């Protein structure tokens, strides 16, 4: 009898995935990510690369949370790094100074993150557009100065806080196994976060978020308490941003002042541009593109390309790397403002529409006929 439940569950799952082309694509990507460490042994099963992939998972959560706030609710935030730093520092301070276990530090950090989100939400909901963008930039900058130059006993200044090996989440494993476990843990949390964020964005609350993005005044005229929904968006976005920071603390095991810098705040922006604003899955795709570009392409292939061309100088190489990377980002932003992931999903939508057009065709024609009189 249990077997029939399993087979039924399995077949409905298969039906669900194959129903919409983009779901199938998402499922295939997930499969790819799951198999990555196993498939290419010796290459991706290397602890260094596993750590990079784990980092990519963490950044993907970070970027997806930003997309909810900015791509869906239209609140331009240039200060998302605030939550990243808060997550990392809170969890590590509690772990190292007060010796609290992760199942205490992480919920506490998340709660603090939400409180911070609501706190900054108060001034943020009052301002719009460029003012909002610039206001959001100030908070992480203030935190940067604070953790860098005050309360050295707690924040450890420039060096930041390191999580000792024995307090890590998988302390007693061999390094490859530890890194692999970290990768899968981060992937699992990424999956759960992505599903939650996506569900929120597609829910009726998500519809209200989009209404705020499109036309705040009109939304108010529909009876919506726009401030309340903006705060909600800040809170959810802050929650998952802080989660990313906590993962950074426990899986990469360091919390340092540069985590509050503009460079961190810009990663979700750039990455969401690669992937597609407002889609939630777009930033995740974009994060992987970014990670591939940044780490694999540049650290592995680019130096080799240069060697072929006979260019050696290593400091110039370092500068050139960021230059080329920025150029690529610039070109992508200029040519595809809607994002790369959109190219794929737009194509998929066209395919789906073509399939439906047979039945939609006559309907559209009828509508035009009656209007013409």
């Amino acid at each position, binding site marked *: 009898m249990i077997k029939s439940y399993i087979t039924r569950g399995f077949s409905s799952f298969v039906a669900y995935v194959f129903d919409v082309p983009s779901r199938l694509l998402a499922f295939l990507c997930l499969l790819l990510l799951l198999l990555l460490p196993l498939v290419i042994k010796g290459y991706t099963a290397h602890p260094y690369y596993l750590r990079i992939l784990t980092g990519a998972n963490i950044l993907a959560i970070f970027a997806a949370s930003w997309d909810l706030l*900015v791509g869906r609710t239209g609140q*331009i935030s*240039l200060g998302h790094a605030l939550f990243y730093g808060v997550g990392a520092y809170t969890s590590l301070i509690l772990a190292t100074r007060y010796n609290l276990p992760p199942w205490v530090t992480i919920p506490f950090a998340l709660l603090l993150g939400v409180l911070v989100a609501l706190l900054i939400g108060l*001034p943020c909901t*009052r*301002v*719009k*557009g*460029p*003012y909002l*963008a*610039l*206001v959001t*930039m*100030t908070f992480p*900058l*203030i935190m940067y*100065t604070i953790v*860098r*130059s005050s309360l050295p006993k707690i924040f450890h200044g420039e060096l930041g806080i390191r999580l000792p090996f024995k307090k890590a989440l998988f302390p007693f494993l061999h390094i490859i196994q530890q890194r692999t476990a970290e990768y899968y843990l981060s992937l699992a949390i990424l999956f759960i976060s992505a599903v939650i964020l996506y569900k929120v964005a597609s829910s009726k609350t998500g519809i209200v978020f989009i209404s705020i993005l499109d036309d*705040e*005044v009109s939304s108010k005229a529909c009876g919506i308490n726009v401030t309340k929904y903006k705060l909600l968006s800040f809170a959810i976005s802050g929650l998952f941003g802080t989660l990313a920071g906590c993962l950074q603390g426990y899986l990469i095991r360091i919390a340092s002042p540069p985590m509050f810098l503009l460079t961190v705040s*810009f990663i979700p*922006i*750039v990455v969401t*541009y690669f992937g597609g*604003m407002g889609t939630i899955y777009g930033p995740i795709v974009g994060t992987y593109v970014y990670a591939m570009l940044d780490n694999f392409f540049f650290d592995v292939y680019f130096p080799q390309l240069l060697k072929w061309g006979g260019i050696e100088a290593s*400091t*110039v190489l370092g*500068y*050139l790397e*960021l*230059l080329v990377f*920025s*150029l690529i*980002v*610039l070109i992508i*932003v*200029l040519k595809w*403002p809607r994002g790369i992931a959109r190219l794929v999903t737009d194509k998929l939508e066209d395919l789906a529409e073509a399939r439906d057009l047979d039945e939609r065709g006559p309907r559209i024609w009828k509508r035009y006929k009656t209007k013409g009189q």
Partner: protein
Amino acid sequence: MLRELTLILVFGTISGGILSLLALGFTLIYGVSRILNLAHGSLYMIGAYMLYVFTSIFVPIFTSFLGSSFPNLDLVAAIFAALAAIGFTGGVGAILYIATIHPIIGDEIATMVSTVTSALIIQQIILIIFGSTFYPASIPIQGSSLILGVTVGNKALVALSASLILFGFVALFVNKSKIGKAMKALSQDREAAMLMGVNTTKLFLLAMAISAMLAATAGILEVTALTGTAAAWMWLHPLASSFAIVILGGLGSIKGSLIGSFIIAYSETVVKILVGGAITPVVPLVVMMVILLIRSKGLFGKRVEMED
């Protein structure tokens, strides 16, 4: 105590004057085209570096033409270099607009991303060409004067006067000239201006060039009067200051950027003198936030009752 106050007054004023040019440029391009140019600080930096470059080029040329005993040769060469640097940066600004802003105009976030990426690209180019060492850049104005009991280099005084004069000139241009009025029209109601036959692209380009030249001038005056060196990371602080000033003064308001510059300059100077350097980067931001909480569009920003 009195000494501190006079120091604050004198240096705050100098700093404020120079910052006002920077802020004016930022608010001008925003007011006219609604673009937040995150590469504004980079244009400031290019101005300073180009001062060094053109000075190095012009000094030998002038020496061979005028003879090395020409009085104040350095100064003359430096002034021409400054003008050349300003013009060069204006050109860079125009190119920046055509290449990275015009294609995506209308998309606020995209322009922010493209301008900040351009800023990074510029930083890397500077690093590749000049490396990470500091370069001396300055207009050699000799001597110093005693102002209110404080010894101030004449460079600083000249910088202050130059910036205030230039500010006044540009403000007058925007308010009185035909082109300036067209720019004002664009900033108030773009569609109506377009219906009146205003060529938006040309005006955006012009505003961008003027904005770049203002930024470059601020950069040149700053290194002349206050710092004396150019470095590849010097675009971040001016950018943050531009934001803070323009926000608290009201985006698009000329009056606001003038008053805002002095508010920020004095606040920074106060903190620097009384407390010390580490916290100063935060000051403009905190001041800006406080003012925003009181007036959500800045002191003189457009206050619309029902948003469009």
